[in-house]
């Protein structure tokens, strides 16, 4: 089943390109560590999901590119076709001549309605090329102007027009010390609108990716390209083919559907985070070997302690002990650093994947009381190695990862709102104070739900 990707705005397009490139490179990588037949099946599965075929054989990404200015889109298109290995469809782009000046309300209330029809037509053409549609993957930033406002509007349109199809929004969480003054307003408006019309919100934090580049990849001058490549590697390790439930004879056909069923079945809990291990520069990779036990131990601790990468993990954090708290002592459940999960999905790729022991992730103490590990924990795997890593593990988690960052953004936005700073920029284009209040209410509710897990 195929996934149609919608790349919105500058970051959406840059990231989208890196993702398709990573998927393609991996599927054509010669170091898959598996038989030729298995490799061919893997390639075919990846191709069905993300690329369509053209007469001269160059695969075309199943994507629609949207931006309000032409520069980034043109760069993206040319980068893809220059490689000669895959490309974007010639008619799959929509862009205008002027930008939107980082104004969310302009993107939502003006660009959205004005251009929705053309954009939805492009999406429709892309959908018709699919024999079967698994769902939509929408890549956008949260805090910018075009990507976020327009993205929120388009997602709502997708909800109306393709109500039975799955929608996952991939969101870039901005740097804590961002340059845009109104980024917190944009963020809460985007999040609240997406929460209503999307099925799942997969979040990547710029701060975390930046640290990975610095500490793990040892990059001195970190560019957006480096960050996006780390991101693409993480997404690739989630979305590349894995075996289906019936066993290793077939690859899973509907990864988006299976992922959502496993992780976001409760309508109040839609925020997902991704962690990946190991992550290192290609140079270091040649000199490293790993065991599943070691990788999984680190991944589990990353989950519990809310670490973003495998360096600097806080090993002191433990899950709370089960059983009634003894009188006179501190209530055992109040462990402020422990990251409680609602549901987790672990994806293993590489050598001897059948020998990996995931008992640590099935511990009921990791999960909330009303959803036991039988329902809450799932595992996907394949023998085929990913991106030259002999063994790699990814974790997609619906947990308290984002409670603190979300709470912080809501707090800052509220402080600004209390003094009505910059509100006129929004009310000028039809986003009223009530819309802000609705957004605050919804996000407060989300924060409270996650806190009470």
């Amino acid at each position: 089943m195929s996934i149609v990707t919608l790349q919105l705005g500058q970051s959406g397009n840059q990231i989208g390109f890196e993702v398709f490139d990573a998927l393609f490179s991996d599927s054509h990588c010669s170091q898959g560590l598996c038989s030729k037949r298995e490799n061919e099946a893997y390639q075919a599965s990846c191709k069905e999901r993300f690329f369509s075929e053209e007469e001269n054989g160059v695969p075309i990404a199943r994507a629609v590119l949207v931006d309000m200015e032409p520069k980034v889109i043109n760069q993206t298109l040319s980068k893809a076709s220059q490689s000669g290995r895959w490309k974007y469809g010639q008619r799959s782009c929509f862009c205008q001549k002027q930008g939107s000046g980082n104004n969310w309300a302009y993107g939502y209330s003006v660009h959205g309605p004005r251009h929705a029809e053309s954009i939805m037509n492009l999406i429709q053409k892309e959908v018709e090329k699919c024999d079967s549609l698994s769902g939509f993957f929408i890549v956008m930033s949260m805090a910018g102007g075009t990507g976020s406002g327009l993205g929120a509007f388009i997602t709502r349109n997708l909800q109306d027009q393709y109500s039975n199809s799955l929608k996952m929004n991939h969101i870039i969480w901005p740097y804590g010390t961002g340059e845009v003054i109104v980024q917190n307003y944009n963020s809460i408006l985007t999040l609240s609108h997406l929460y209503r019309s999307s099925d799942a919100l997969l979040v990547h934090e710029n701060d975390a990716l930046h640290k990975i580049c610095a500490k793990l990849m040892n990059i001195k001058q970190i560019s957006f390209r480096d960050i996006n490549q780390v991101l693409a590697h993480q997404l690739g390790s989630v979305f590349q083919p894995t075996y289906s439930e019936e066993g290793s004879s077939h690859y899973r056909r509907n990864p988006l559907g299976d992922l959502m069923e496993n992780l976001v079945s409760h309508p109040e809990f839609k925020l997902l985070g991704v962690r990946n291990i190991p992550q290192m520069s290609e140079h270091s990779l040649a000199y490293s070997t790993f065991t599943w036990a070691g990788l999984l131990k680190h991944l589990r601790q990353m989950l519990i302690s809310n670490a973003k990468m495998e360096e600097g993990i806080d090993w002191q954090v433990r899950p709370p002990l089960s059983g009634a708290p003894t009188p006179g002592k501190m209530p055992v459940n109040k462990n402020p650093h422990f990251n409680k999960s609602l549901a987790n999905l672990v994806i293993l790729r590489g050598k001897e994947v059948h020998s990996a022991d995931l008992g640590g992730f099935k511990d009921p103490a990791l999960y909330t009381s009303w959803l036991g590990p039988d329902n809450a924990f799932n595992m996907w795997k394949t023998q085929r190695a990913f991106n030259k890593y002999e063994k790699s593990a990814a974790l997609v988690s619906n947990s308290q990862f984002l409670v603190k960052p979300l709470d912080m953004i809501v707090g800052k936005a509220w402080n600004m709102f209390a003094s009505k700073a910059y509100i006129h920029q929004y009310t000028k284009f039809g986003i009223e104070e009530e819309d802000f209040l609705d957004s605050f209410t919804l996000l407060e509710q989300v924060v409270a739900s996650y806190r009470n897990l």
Partner: protein
Amino acid sequence: MGRRRRPAELAGAAGALPEAIAALSRALPAGPSPETFRRAKFDRPEAAPALWRLLFRVLSPPRADGASASRALEAQARWVKAALLTQGYPRLRLARLPDDGSQGSRELLLALSWLLARKPLLEPLLARTRVRLGDELPAFECGALASPSLPAPRLEADGPVDACHLQWLMGKLRFRWRNLMASQQEQCALLGKIHMYTRGCHSDCRLGHLSVAETELLRDPEGGRQLLRRLESENARLGAALEWWRRELVFWQWMDTVLGACPPEAPQPACPPGLGGRGRTAGAWDPAVWELQALQEELQAAVGARRAAWAARVRGQGPEWSAARQAAQEATREAVGRELAALRQAWERGGGPQPHGPLRLVRTEAGAPGGPGLRAVEAIGALKSREACLEAALHQLQAQCRQQLARLAGALPGLLWIPPPGR
């Protein structure tokens, strides 16, 4: 018990009975050997399990899956007894047979012949296992819903059920439904492609193109051989059924002797004396009717006493709860009445009986003169009206649930309901 009268060509021919029984055994699915039938006349215990299994197979609803077929003999025997009772089978001796399926082969033989005589039994069984070559539209096969289904294993909730957990399960169900929709759309798209690519390949020009099964036949010779084998065995069964219909008179005469071999029933209140004898005329039923009426009165008295006792016990638990329950009963009665009215309306609106039976999908050129059979537009219309009925029923049920929730919430002071975001 009505019985078809056939010209008495073969009546009395001594060799005709084994052949008739052999034909019946070949025509039935999972038919027991003719030897089993003979043993059953003498109530031999070794014949019983095969007959229990046969009755289970014969009475199961059309879409019963493999899991139900592999149930233990005990479960099958219990189910057969219940199904026969539902259909009105009169002999209580069968109901009193032990559940372990070890006895009663003669009673089972009688039950089988009762089913055979009552209404067409072989035809629907044969239709069920027809080899289907075309791509079918499954939506219009009625009767699948009407038959009594096997009770699904019930999961008892131990302890209070968390509302959050239920929401999770509901969400999971919704996702699975959406994935199913996507799969079905994929199937339609691929079917369309196959039909389009194989245009002009079919020897029957009314059809014009191949179905999936026929395409597979061409692609995979081994599959073709298997299909041929299935067609051959279906032919054999059809031939056996024809032979049975020619010879069955002999079987009924033999069944009379089987009945005669039964010991007289012990005097029980609900066992009419005239059943085992000859001459199944209406007059023989009067004592049966009288006995049944007496039994019914007895049952009603017993049920009334039990209900009063239970109501008294329940009343101790809280007056508002039993009042709510009575209100719920009243609401149920109203709901059933409304649903019947809606069904009647829909039937009239839909222009009478809906399309019915298996339909093969055939793709034609746009604007080509229509052949026999249902057009897509009509099929879509019929499905849409059915969808409208079901949606109306769903809305009603949802409204009822909402009212019930509001009632429960109102009963608990200080409780706030906050609906989830969106919709």
